[in-house]
């Protein structure tokens, strides 16, 4: 932690105050909750882990069943948690290391790993959800003539018109991908309609898919349900009304459309590839899509920088969890630079993405 290393090692990126406040709130809530609701640090080989987590999930689900109104719906493919009648008071659902699914009213919700969602309302009064953090995919019946279904993501409001869509929250920013149907996104006083195959990203609507959109759901995780702070969790005596479901597999979402750099992306002034590379690198954390497009444009425009730029694009796609694009770009790199200075890394990247494939 020496200060004189700051020139060499960029400083630790601070966490926003909001994150600290949320973390502190979650921490005290977790400490006050029954111990079974917590996920303690464990190793993957611990054999007692899943039974303990499953017991925690069942206990939490049972508590939820007592706290929440019950309905009589019985979905053909039962989710980990079912709340067909909605909820009278706000409730929070969190996922652990794997995605999980739940039914809320007539909506199917798939919560990504390490995500949290506040649920409130019902089909009669309207549904209000808040994505606290992480990622969630919603399948919602058309809302024509029905109560609204709204997802809040920080200052961004997504109103469903009848659709399947994914929302990702990263701090205070949000991304919305519409798989089918249409949603309305309101942010900063601006209203956008996002249609199937489009992505709303920081106020811009583009064609394509979000990075890392999951194609399949991993083994069903435990669902920790935290009741509102004012309601003490009751002692669970009855068997749980909610069963842990087997893994649910879903088809991939909208096909990825790789945005090609256009002439408009190219600077009109004297082109400085070094500056372009630096600018792309600087964009990575704030606007990774633009960074990726800039690397690809540079790879096409400046042969001397193509090696570095093309590999950087592949690495960035990989870093963002976009395996398909990472794989495509790493392969493209190796076709163009089979003995390039990043060839070793590109092969390692491909081997990592397809462990069974040997890359020559």
């Amino acid at each position, binding site marked *: 932690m020496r200060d004189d290393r700051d020139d060499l090692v*960029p*400083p630790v990126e601070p966490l926003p105050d909001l994150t600290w406040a949320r973390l502190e709130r979650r*921490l*005290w809530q977790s400490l006050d909750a029954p111990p079974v609701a917590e996920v303690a640090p464990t190793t993957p080989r611990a054999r007692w882990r899943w039974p303990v987590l499953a017991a925690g999930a069942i206990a939490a689900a049972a508590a939820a069943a007592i706290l929440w109104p019950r309905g009589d719906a019985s979905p053909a493919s039962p989710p980990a948690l079912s709340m067909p009648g909605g909820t009278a008071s706000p409730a929070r659902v969190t996922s652990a290391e794997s995605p999980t699914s739940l039914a809320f009213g007539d909506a199917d919700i798939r919560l990504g790993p390490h995500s949290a969602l506040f649920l409130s309302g019902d089909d009669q009064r309207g549904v209000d959800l808040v994505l606290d953090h992480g990622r969630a995919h919603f399948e919602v019946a058309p809302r024509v003539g029905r109560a609204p279904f709204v997802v809040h993501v920080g200052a961004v409001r997504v109103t469903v018109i009848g659709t399947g869509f994914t929302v990702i929250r990263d701090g205070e920013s949000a991304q919305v991908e519409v798989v089918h149907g249409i949603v309305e996104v309101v942010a900063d006083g601006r209203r956008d309609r996002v249609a199937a195959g489009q992505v709303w990203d920081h106020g811009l609507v583009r064609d394509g898919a979000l990075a890392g959109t999951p194609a399949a759901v991993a083994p069903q995780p435990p669902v920790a349900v935290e009741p509102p702070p004012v309601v003490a969790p009751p002692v669970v005596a009855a068997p749980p009304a909610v069963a842990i479901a087997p893994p649910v597999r879903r088809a991939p979402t909208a096909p990825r459309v790789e945005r090609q750099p256009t002439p408009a992306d190219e600077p009109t002034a004297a082109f400085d590839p070094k500056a372009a590379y*630096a600018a792309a*690198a600087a964009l990575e954390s704030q606007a990774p899509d633009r960074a990726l497009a800039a690397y690809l444009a540079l790879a096409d425009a400046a042969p001397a920088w193509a090696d570095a730029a093309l590999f950087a694009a592949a690495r960035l796609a990989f*870093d963002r969890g976009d395996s398909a694009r990472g794989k495509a770009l790493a392969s493209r790199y190796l076709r163009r630079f089979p003995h390039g200075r990043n060839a070793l890394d590109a092969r390692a990247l491909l081997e990592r993405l397809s462990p069974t494939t040997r890359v020559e």
Partner: protein
Amino acid sequence: MAAVSRTSDAEVAELCARGDRAAQRDLFLRTRNAVHHTLYRVLGSNRDIEDLLQETYLAVFRSIGNYAGRSSLLTWCCSVATHVALSHLRRKKPVPVAHLEIESDAPSTDQVVRARAALARLYHALDRIDPTQRVAFALAVIDGRSLAEVAEMTGASLSAVKTQVWRAKKAIDKRAAVDPLLRDYVTDLARDAEGVA
């Protein structure tokens, strides 16, 4: 925070173990930046950091009754964070990302961009080595901590830490042989770090 500074670490630990929320909150506020720093340096980004911070503090408050006072409470909390990070690296297929902000008062954009790109490559390389070696290398070489401090944080012997750092450096040197940016960066980093000669 004042209450904590007037009280010894052992007394704070005892209050926290008894569930004294004020003491727990003081300890959280007093140590959170150092704990975040430790996790960030081991992982290379703020990805998953919120969950790991929560996991760390849950472990801290649930096991603080075992605090024996052999190190400061701050070091003990960072040690818990190190173990949480190690468990995270072992149980999860890690994705190397280095999200580092460019500060307006940084030396120069070029330097920062270069350091940032090099650090991202370094974490990319670290992602492929043994998590124990990665943790030791990150704390000793990237964060510049002494080997004794790393040993205290990881619970390993001094000689074990030295070996872990050396093996990590050797593995990274292999990758750096074909990556001049990484090679220069690791050389600069290792210049004044212990255990990497």
